[in-house]
């Protein structure tokens, strides 16, 4: 089964307020003259190429696109995008981007972050951005390691990880970013992999089309400090058996010729051989379900070794966005209220000292 079959209807309601370009764009229009300084072979390169290759599709004016990042290898991303860009401070990009997007509905605002930036130092901002649902697209590059600080374990590293700061193995249990996002009331949550450009692009497309905060976890290889972290999902030997491409409204079957499938057993999801169950038993994915419990259960499927990792869109639901509600309140107040500065300053109770009483 091909991974590029992920698709949701791309209506660009989310970007309705962003001015469109009159001239057709190409990927190279989004490249800057800056020398890209990631390590050779880093997964970030392919993600950059995918984003630059995909943006022309949206047809937005370049000057109305802003990339905001925090700190970390991935956070250098804005320097390589010929749009507006803000490379901010560690963990704070979602907060900064929220202020920008809430005050400028005519912008398409993207956040580029990593597992340390988004889930460790910036965890608070991430969860609040997700529940608040400002119109933002957050690309979380998860390489399960700290790269820029040279190789400490991260909040997504598997337990027991041997790193410079954990010579006897890490002790803390990792976050599952998709589970975190779903728990934080996210309206859009997806996962994809750096190595599959077509799938990556299709997920980006769905995320861009989403009105509200979209979180895309991108498994990204750090070939210097955590090489091969996702090999089991890339190796042709295991990929088919371990990777579960999610498609909205379709039964969750995967593996060679759909030989494996997801079913419910005692309230939990589990993977069984498709020929061992009735076709009706196969769980049908519903990304648009109001209740996030199926999406959450899917996010819990993989073990620490990544066996049975679903990719694609876990959840995509409509909820009014913060920026739109804020704009509506202002429009309503402007309609009904009186913006008379003089009256405001005078208030209710004034008294006048006449000129003749002057001392």
């Amino acid at each position, binding site marked *: 089964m091909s991974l590029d079959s992920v698709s949701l209807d791309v209506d660009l309601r989310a970007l309705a307020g962003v*001015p469109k370009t009159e001239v057709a764009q190409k990927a190279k229009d989004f490249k*800057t003259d*800056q020398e890209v300084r990631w390590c050779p072979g880093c997964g970030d390169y392919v993600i950059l190429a995918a984003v630059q290759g995909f943006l022309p599709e949206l047809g937005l*004016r370049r*000057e*109305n*696109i*802003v*990339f905001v*990042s925090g700190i970390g290898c991935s956070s250098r991303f*804005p*320097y390589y*995008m*010929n*749009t*507006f*860009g*803000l*490379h*901010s*401070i560690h963990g*704070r990009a979602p*907060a*900064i*981007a*929220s*202020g*920008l*997007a*809430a*005050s*400028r509905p005519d*912008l398409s605002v993207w956040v580029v972050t990593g597992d340390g930036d988004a889930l460790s130092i910036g965890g*608070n*901002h991430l969860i*609040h951005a997700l529940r608040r649902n400002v119109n933002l697209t957050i690309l979380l590059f998860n390489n399960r390691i700290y790269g820029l600080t040279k190789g400490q374990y991260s909040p997504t590293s598997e337990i027991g990880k041997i790193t410079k700061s954990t010579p006897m193995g890490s002790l803390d249990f990792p976050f599952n970013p998709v589970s975190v996002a779903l728990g934080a009331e996210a309206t859009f949550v997806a996962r994809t992999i750096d190595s599959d450009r077509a799938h990556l692009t299709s997920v980006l497309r769905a995320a861009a089309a989403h009105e509200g905060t979209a979180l895309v976890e991108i498994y990204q290889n750090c070939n210097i400090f955590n090489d091969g972290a996702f090999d089991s999902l890339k190796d042709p030997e295991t990929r088919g058996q371990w990777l579960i491409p999610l498609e909205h409204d379709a039964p969750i079957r995967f593996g060679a010729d759909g030989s494996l499938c997801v079913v419910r057993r005692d309230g939990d999801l589990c993977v069984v051989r498709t020929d061992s169950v009735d076709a009706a038993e196969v769980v049908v994915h519903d990304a648009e379900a109001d209740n996030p419990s199926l999406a959450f259960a899917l996010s819990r499927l993989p073990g620490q070794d990544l066996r049975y990792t679903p990719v694609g869109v876990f959840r995509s639901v409509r909820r009014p966005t913060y920026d739109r509600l*804020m704009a509506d*309140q*202002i429009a*309503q*107040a*402007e309609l009904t*209220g*009186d*913006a008379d*500065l*003089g009256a*405001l*300053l*005078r*208030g209710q*109770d*004034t*008294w*006048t*000292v*006449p000129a003749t*009483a*002057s*001392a």
Partner: protein
Amino acid sequence: MAKQVQQLDRVVIRFAGDSGDGMQLAGDQFTSETAVFGNDLSTLPNFPAEIRAPAGTLPGVSSFQLHFADHEITTPGDAPDVLVAMNPAALKANLPDLPAGRDIIVNSDEFSARNLAKVGYASNPLDNDALDSWRVHKVALTSMTIEALKDTGLGKKEAARAKNMFALGLLSWMYHRPTDGTLRFLEKKFAKLPQVAAANVAAFRAGWNYGETTESFGVSYEIKPAVMKPGVYRNISGNLALSYGLIAASRRSGLPLFLGAYPITPASDILHELSKHKAFGVRTFQAEDEIAGIGAALGAAFGGALAVTTTSGPGLALKSETIGLAVSLELPLVICDIQRGGPSTGLPTKTEQTDLLQAMFGRNGEAPVPIVAAQSPGDCFDAAIEAVRIALTYRTPVFLLSDGYLANGSEPWSIPDLDRLPQLTADFAVATDEPFLPYERDPETLARPWAVPGTAGLEHRIGGLEKADKTGEISYDPANHALMVGLRQSKVDRIAQSIPPLQVDDPSGVARVVVLGWGSTHGVIDAACHRVRRRGIPVAQLHLRHLNPFPADLGGLLRSYDRVVLPELNLGQLALLLRARYLVDVIGINQVSGMPFRAADLEDSLWDILQGVDT
């Protein structure tokens, strides 16, 4: 019975009761009546950080002091002339401040054995000679309120809650206050609860009538309106004036106002106030924490908004890193710090000037940030506009320092003429044929262009890494770093060129000692200087609006005096800066008690210092 009316030139009243007794409300209302009557006034609310500290205990006492006069006054008064004590705790907590011979109006109903025991009174001070040094008026406030409200249908407990309005009515009678405003206020406040509105009005009237008829109060007092500069006045608190200043600055600059904030005492009222003014295009963003509050504001600044964040000391500590980013990005941002007692959580509802050095230096690297300070509640309006002017003109974060005393205190405010407010301009960058250079500077101000997203041709990337001069690209070059550090400092230094010459107040023209101040101490320093002058020693007074950079003429001015005296509500923070900068031996008068200076104390300290000076 014809009652005697006595003329007074000034009075200090303190309402004191339990946190739940509505003393702040009664005080506010008495203040409004007094303002409308035309007295000059100054207030000092003083309340615990707990919303409802245990009832009847000393930590639960909340008070509101009001000084009003028929002439110009600048402080809330050192000591009350009249203490209204709603329970034994309020009496015990406030008695030490009350000079002998002054009046106590006390709610005798609350002096039960239980309430007395709570505050450690072994016997009832109303029944023994403990209060013989004062003029005590025992008033059964609670029971008379209940009696007055017996036809309203309210239960006893509910009716008793209106006793603050009974007290307000009595005091309003005593001082001939106009009552229309209070009656209107009550109708409006309880518009949805007509029964409660009627009860409060009835209690207020009962208090007034009680004063009129009882023999316990033989005298009422008249304090004529003060002679003030012509104009239209209103009463205003510091946080309200600051909020209005920001809205006015938004209007004048044509930039939409964006506030990113996290609730914190005593700054939250600015968030509350601004959130009411969406009709002025104001966006308020209540963030998940202090860091996100300023982060969102900085994001909005990048997008071209007039961006503001509000906080107090502990919150400012959390914002430090983002302020550093704003310094590096060179974007306009106003950071309002409503100072309170510290360190750490400290004294949330009390006042201090202890954040000056935090504002000045509380960041990593060489990160200069301009600082302006407000000097009175009404002045918060002008100070806010000045902070915005500097932020927009020089593309820089700016501190606006206020404090708990200014925030909650109030005074009559001459409503400004809109046409005479400073003109503020944003001047967004526009594309030209040349390649865009985000760190190319204005030769005069050294400000960089403000290039907002949505402007074709100005796409650029900037961040917290050191930037190359002009291009803004990442640069680790040593010479470039030295250049950029110098440029950022010079830009802030140049603000001094836009500051008008200092105005020293020296009626004698021969003073050899200058009393310097900044922030909320203006009124009390002014009062202390007047008193010292009346005692025959000339002193000059100088109050600073700008603390970074200092006005260009400050150094020369300070050196022209034999002595520089500097009262501060800290251990000498401005003194430290002045000594370092000008090698002037500043003599500090310092108090860090969470309370403003008292004019008499300051007068004494000044007097002692002046004795050692050959004037």
